[in-house]
């Protein structure tokens, strides 16, 4: 595939509470591609996702990130969302008192409005959202509840993909999209994500387990450890990791470096 470059990460380092978590990440993502980022707990997978989305607790200390050729760090988090970057949260946040329908419509109008699309009033949005709900087999009653409040783990994850569906990002980063899902919910979430893929957008899957990659097949698998990408391969690498764990990759990397 030779789609145009959407994301270019160069020698990125970042800290949380003064501790360096990312120690020089290089990654290029082109349109049409699916990248899986795998690694043991604490390796920096989620940190990379949050740094790209602009979480205020994470401080970029060096390196560059270009999003469609422009400096991503010039954009505040809402501007990144409007530019087409989407983070699917590992633990979606509950927002009591804000109805899911109002939240989704405001998000749609903010992001799609910034791209020159017409804003939708509540009735129009209600029509628009029906197909998206079907995509994720979600009951319309979800719209009347407060954002994620009292949702089960699976419901929260489906609500994340619903947001991805209406915001139509160029790059979606899904952080542990499969954690807490039973096999039926996993099939629904993965099926929804696959239907949203196109040759114009790209996907980064941050995941601990290979299971999700049976449903959303990656073009590249990256292994991250101690804040660095230490190995990149095709989809077969994920199966090897499932069989053999992560230790051999780290040993191979250290042997090469020595």
């Amino acid at each position, binding site marked *: 595939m030779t789609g145009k470059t959407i994301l270019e990460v160069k020698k990125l380092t970042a800290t949380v509470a003064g501790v360096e978590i990312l120690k020089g990440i290089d990654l290029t993502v082109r349109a049409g591609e699916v990248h899986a980022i795998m690694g043991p707990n604490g390796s920096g997978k989620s940190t990379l996702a949050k740094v790209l*989305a*602009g*979480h*205020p*607790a994470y401080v970029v200390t060096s390196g560059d990130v270009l999003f469609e050729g422009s400096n991503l760090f010039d954009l*505040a*988090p*809402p501007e*990144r*969302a*409007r530019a087409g970057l*989407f*983070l699917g*949260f590992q633990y*979606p*946040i509950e*927002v*009591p*008192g*804000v109805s899911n329908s109002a*939240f989704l419509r*405001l*998000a749609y109008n*903010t*992001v799609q409005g*910034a791209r020159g699309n017409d804003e939708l009033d509540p009735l129009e949005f209600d029509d628009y959202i029906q197909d998206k709900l079907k995509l994720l087999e979600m009951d319309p009653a979800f719209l009347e509840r*407060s954002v994620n409040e009292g949702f089960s783990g699976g419901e929260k994850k489906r609500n994340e993909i619903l*947001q991805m569906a209406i*915001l139509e990002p160029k790059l979606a980063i899904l952080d542990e999209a499969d954690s807490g899902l039973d096999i039926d919910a996993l099939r629904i979430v993965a099926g929804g994500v696959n239907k949203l893929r196109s040759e114009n957008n790209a996907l980064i899957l941050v995941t601990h387990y290979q299971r999700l990659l049976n449903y959303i097949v990656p073009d590249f698998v990256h292994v991250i450890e101690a804040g660095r990408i230490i190995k990149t391969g095709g989809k077969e690498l994920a199966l090897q990791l499932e069989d053999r764990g992560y230790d051999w990759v780290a040993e191979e990397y250290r042997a090469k470096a020595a």
Partner: protein
Amino acid sequence: MELVKSNYLDGLLPGETSLPPTPRDWLNRLRGDALDVANALPLPTTRDEEWRFTDLAPLYKTTFRRADHATPLSAVDIARFDVPEAGYRLTFVDGHFAPHLSVLDASAGLILKPLAAAVTEQDLIAQEHLSRYVDFHGDAFAAVNTAWLQDGVFVHIGRDVVLSAPIHVLFISTRGEGASYPRVLLVADRGSDCTLIEDFVSLQDAAYLVNAVTEISLADRARVRHIRLQRDNANAFHIATCGVKVGRDAHYASTSVALGARLSRVNLNVLQAGTGAQCEIDGLALISGRQLADTHTLLDHAQPDGRSRQMHKCIAGGAAHAVFNGKIFVRKDAQRTDSSQQSRNLLLTERAHIDTKPQLEIFADDVKCAHGATVGQLDAEQMFYLMSRGFSETTARELLTFAFAAEIVERIPVPSLVQRLEETVVRQTQTRTSQP
């Protein structure tokens, strides 16, 4: 009866003449006792535990006088305060009953009239209940209100009578440096059911004083929903005490919203006097600028099997100061009481200030009590979540502030008030968060 000129009444109300006697001796005696108490009680200061956080000095600087007559108003003047769901309305202008702005439809089992008429026409009920649920002996403001008791609202709901439409009581202040002493007495007989809305508003911007007392008695199995809206102007002083007695298996639900006044203090004292009594107490103070809003509540569980749930929220912007003091007593006999109290507070600026003090005193051994208090800024993870979906920081802040307030507002069982208050909240949170 003459006022002794050595106390705070002197400062607050110089030149006030005593009221003409009423035709009822018991009422004349009650007023006389209250005047004696008002004259004897010292001026509350921040040295008093009950007034620790609320400095009344600004109140004492101004002289407030009762209006000897009501400013003439027409229906147009008060149209914006209309509550379409209400079946009845009593309007008071500067403390004076305004019959032409009131709707007192007759309804079987309901007596709804000005207190001045009720003290003669419903003499026995008025005498039995008036001044029984708010004790003025330790409360100078309640004593002054009682000493100056002239008129007010009288509601008596007969046994098993269910009132489907709310009663709207509108207190309008039209004069700078005016003082009014609103008084409400609601007597709900066994098994009755009603909704009372107390609404304090102003038609001008100068300072005035509202000193209100409300008394509510719920007999066995009665249900009362009580909504209190304090939207006085930003220079007003608003002091109020509400006393409620909840009988066996009766249910009292209160939602109190404080938006206005430079300085407001509301005391809500609920006595769960019968077995199985229940109450739900919700409060919201949304203030900014240099406003101070102080809420003191006391829930007294005196009998077994009672339940209470309380949620009080304060949102303070600008250099505003919110105070919440919530006492819960569970008496020795009040076994199997189930009580929860939450105080949640949101500071919108660094200059805003909130004092919250939940107090739990339990003398029974078989009880379930939960309480907690939080004071904070908006949740950083919620902010980031909204911003990651394209919301600007300002929009995210406004939305979360609105949601925080809406949880209380939406508990008001009157849709038009919910809508109007939510519009007010949107307006206030927008102007408030944009201020530095």
